[in-house]
C-alpha cells in the first residue's frame, strides 16, 4: 500500500465519520478498541516470546507486542471497529513449534452485545486433549441407568402392588414419592439429621401417609362400590390437589436435600458420588426383601392371591381389606424411600414425583401390569435404556429413547415382559 493511498483512506474515513448522524449511532462509541489475548499450544502450555502483530484491512501494522511468560499479550489498541489480522511470529519464542507463523482474522463490531477490547486465545498446535472413549462413556451411562432403574423400580413396585390389590392405577402415586423427598429435605437439611436417619424416618412417615390415604379415602370409596374409572379419576384430582399443596409450602424452587457429602467413588471409567452406590445398595436390599416377602411371606402370598383373583382369594379366607391396607402402607413407604433417594441423586422439588410418574408407568406396563417381578425388570430396562440412548440422541430428549423401547417391546409382547398371555382380552 502506498502512502498516498493511506492518506486517501484516512480522508475517506474522516468523511464517513462526519456523515454519520450524531446521536444514537454514537451510542456505543467506546474509548478504547483493541485486542489482547493468550498464545498457547495444544498441550495448554503458554508460548512466550512470540511477536504478535495486528494489521488493519489495509495491511498496515497497527500495533505489536510480545507474549510474556504466561503466553499473554496486553491490549494492542486499534482505531475502531473493523476486521483486523492478528499475525503471530514464533521465531524467537520458546517451545517446540518455534519458527512457525500464524494468522487469524478477527472482527471488532460496534454493538451493545460485544466488548470493544476482544480477548482472544490462539492455539499454535492442535489440542492433545483426548475425549473419553465410547466404552468409558457407555460404562458411565449404564451404571447411571441402572441406578435410575432401581429408583424407578422401588417407586413402581408400590404402584404395581396397589394396582394388583385395588385394581386401579393410582395417579397420585407420584405425590407419595414427592412426600418422601420433601420429608427428607425437612429432616436432613432443615433439622440437620444424618442422611440415613432422615431416610429412615421419611420412609416411616411415608408408610403412615399411605395408610392414611387408604383409611380416609380409598376404603370408604371401595365400600360404596365406586367404579374403577371413577377411582382413577379421583386419584388424578388428589394428585393435583396434593401437588398444589406441596407447591404452596415448598415453593417452585428445587433444592438440594442435604449438605452432607460422602465423597466420590471411581471404579475404572465410572465416576459417581458414593451416595449413588449407597442408593443402589439400599434399593437392591429392599427389592430382594420385597421379593422374598411376596414369594414366601403369608401376607405376601395373600397379596399375590388377590392380584390373581380377588373374589376367589376372599372366599378362601383372605382378609382382602386388611391386605389391601397393608399394601397401601407398604406402597407409601417404598414411594417415600425412592423420593429420598431421588432427592439425593438429584434435587427435591414439589413435582419431582410427578415427573417420575411417566417412567414408573412405563416400568409397570413394560413388566406386565400387576406383576411385581415384572415391574422390577421393566423399571430397570426403562432406566438403562433412557440413560444409555443419550449416547446417540440429545440428552434433553432422553425419555424419547426409554419410551420408544416401551412401545417396541409392547408391539412384540402386548402383555409386557412378565405378564401372562391369558390376561389379555
Amino acid at each position: 500500500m502506498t502512502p498516498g493511498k493511506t492518506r486517501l483512506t484516512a480522508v475517506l474515513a474522516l468523511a464517513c465519520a462526519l456523515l454519520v448522524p450524531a446521536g444514537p449511532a454514537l451510542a456505543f462509541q467506546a474509548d478504547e478498541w483493541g485486542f489482547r489475548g493468550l498464545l498457547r499450544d495444544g498441550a495448554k502450555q503458554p508460548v512466550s516470546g512470540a511477536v504478535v502483530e495486528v494489521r488493519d484491512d489495509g495491511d498496515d501494522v497497527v500495533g505489536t507486542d510480545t507474549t510474556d511468560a504466561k503466553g499473554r499479550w496486553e491490549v494492542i489498541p486499534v482505531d475502531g471497529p473493523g476486521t483486523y489480522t492478528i499475525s503471530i511470529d514464533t521465531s524467537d519464542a520458546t517451545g517446540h513449534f518455534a519458527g512457525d507463523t500464524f494468522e487469524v482474522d478477527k472482527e471488532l463490531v460496534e454493538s451493545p452485545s460485544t466488548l470493544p477490547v476482544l480477548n482472544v486465545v490462539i492455539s499454535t498446535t492442535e489440542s492433545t486433549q483426548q475425549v473419553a472413549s465410547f466404552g468409558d462413556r457407555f460404562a458411565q451411562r449404564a451404571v447411571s441407568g441402572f441406578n435410575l432403574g432401581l429408583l424407578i423400580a422401588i417407586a413402581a413396585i408400590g404402584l404395581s402392588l396397589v394396582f394388583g390389590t385395588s385394581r386401579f392405577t393410582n395417579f397420585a402415586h407420584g405425590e407419595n414419592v414427592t412426600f418422601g423427598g420433601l420429608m427428607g429435605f425437612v429432616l436432613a437439611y432443615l433439622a440437620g439429621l444424618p442422611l440415613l436417619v432422615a431416610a429412615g424416618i421419611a420412609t416411616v412417615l411415608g408408610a403412615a401417609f399411605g395408610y392414611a390415604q387408604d383409611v380416609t379415602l380409598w376404603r370408604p370409596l371401595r365400600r360404596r362400590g365406586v367404579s374403577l374409572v371413577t377411582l382413577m379419576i379421583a386419584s388424578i384430582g388428589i394428585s393435583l390437589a396434593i401437588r398444589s399443596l406441596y407447591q404452596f409450602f415448598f415453593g417452585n424452587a428445587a433444592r438440594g436435600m442435604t449438605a452432607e457429602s460422602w465423597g466420590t467413588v471411581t471404579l475404572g471409567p465410572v465416576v459417581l458420588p458414593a451416595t449413588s452406590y449407597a442408593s443402589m445398595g439400599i434399593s437392591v436390599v429392599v427389592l430382594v426383601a420385597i421379593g422374598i416377602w411376596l414369594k414366601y411371606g403369608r401376607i405376601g402370598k395373600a397379596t399375590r392371591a388377590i392380584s390373581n383373583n380377588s373374589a376367589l382369594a376372599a372366599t378362601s379366607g383372605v382378609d382382602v381389606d386388611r391386605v389391601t391396607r397393608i399394601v397401601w402402607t407398604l406402597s407409601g413407604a417404598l414411594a417415600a424411600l425412592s423420593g429420598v433417594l431421588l432427592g439425593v441423586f438429584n434435587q427435591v422439588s414439589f413435582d419431582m414425583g410427578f415427573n417420575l410418574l411417566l417412567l414408573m408407568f412405563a416400568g409397570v406396563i413394560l413388566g406386565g401390569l400387576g406383576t411385581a417381578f415384572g415391574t422390577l425388570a421393566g423399571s430397570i430396562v426403562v432406566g438403562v435404556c433412557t440413560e444409555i440412548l443419550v449416547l446417540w440422541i440429545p440428552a434433553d430428549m432422553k425419555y424419547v429413547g426409554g419410551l420408544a423401547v416401551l412401545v417396541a417391546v409392547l408391539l412384540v409382547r402386548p402383555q409386557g415382559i412378565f405378564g401372562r398371555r391369558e390376561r389379555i382380552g
Partner: protein
Amino acid sequence: MAAISRALITGVCVISLAACSSSGDGGEEPAATGGPLRIGAILPHTAYAGAGEALVSAVDVAIDDINAAGGVLGAKAELKQADSTDNNDTASQAVDSLVTWGADVVIGAYGSGMSGAIVGKITESGALQVSGSNTSSSLTGINPLYFRTAPTDALEAAKLADLVVQDGHATAAIIAQNDAWGQAFQESMVSSFEAAGVEIVAQQQFNTTDTDYSAQIDAVVAAKPESVVLLSYASYSGSMIESLVGTHGFTAKNLYLSNSTLGKYTIKPSLLTGLRGFLAGPDPAVEAEFEKKLLAKNANLKSFAYAASTYDAVVVSALAATAAKSADGKAIGAKMSAVSGATEGATKCKTYQECADLLKQDKAIDYDGLSGGLKFATNNDVTETEYQLYVYDSAGTYAVAK
C-alpha cells in the same frame, strides 16, 4: 315489561357512560398533558422463591423518591402494583387491571418469557412497558414501546468469554436450560466463544422437568473441556454444581455461572466456594446504600438482583414523561433515549431530583442511574452497563469480587 327493559337499558347506558368518562380522566388522552403520571407495576410478589420481592420494593422506593422531589408534571406520580405470579395467564389478567386503571407506564415483567407474552396487551393500550429485569436477547426490538434497563445476556456472554480466556482456557462446554432464556443465552455464548477463539467441545441442554441431569453432566465430562459455563436458574443448578465440582473435579477456576445461576443453594457450601459469575449492577457503595432503603420497605429481603435496574426503569420513565411534558405512553417512549444520554452535550445527573431540576431549566439531561451508565440503543436495549464480578465465599453466599 317493555318499559322495564327500556329503563334497564337506559340505566346500563348511563352507568357505562359514567364509567367511560371516569376512565377518561385517567390521563390516557394525550391532549391532557398534565394530570398524574400513572405507573403500574407487574412483578411477582411471592413467586420464584421470592426473587421478585426486592423489585417490588425498588418500585416503591423509586416512587417515594420521585414524589419527594415534587412528582411528575406538577402532580404526585400514582402507583398501582399488581402481582404477576409466575403464571402468564394470571399476569395477563393483572395487566387488564392495570390498563383499566389507566396506567401510562407499566414496569415489568420479571421474566423475559412473561414480558414477551404481555407486551402486546400493554403497548396496544398505549402504555409504555419498561422492564428492569428482562435479559433475553429474544426480546430485542420486540416493540417500539418496550424498553428495558437490564442488559441483554449477549453482553454478559461476551464478559464470560472474556473471563474464560483471561483464565487461560481454550476449550469450553456449555450446559443450558432448555427454554427461551437458556437457548438465547446459549446462542450468544456460542458466538462470543467463537469470536474469542475458544473451541466449544460440548453443548448440552436440559429440561427443567427431567428426573436428573446426569446425562448432560456425563456428556460434558466425557468431552474433557477446560472450562464449563452453566446457563441455568439457580433452582436447577444445585445438583449440577454438586456433580461437576464434587464428583468430577471441576473447580472455581474453570466453572463459570450465569447471572441467574448465582443464587442461594442448600448444597455443601464448600462446593460453591470461589465460583464466579457476572451481575449487572451498581458499584458496591451505591448498592449498599440502596439496599438499606429497600430493607426499610421490606426487612425480609435477601436477594437484590435487578432491584437497582428496576428502580432506574421507574425513574427514567418519569424523567421521560417530564421531558415530554405528557403522561402519554407514546410521548414518553419518544423521550426515553433523549433523557438517558442520546442528546449531545447533555448534563449528567444521578438522581430524580437533580435531573428534574435540570429539565425545569430546559437543559438536556443524561440520567446515569443506580445500575451505572444508562443509555438506550436504537432497538431500546440498554447499553453502557456496568458488570460486577461476583464470587461465592466459603459460607455459600456470593458477593462482589475484591
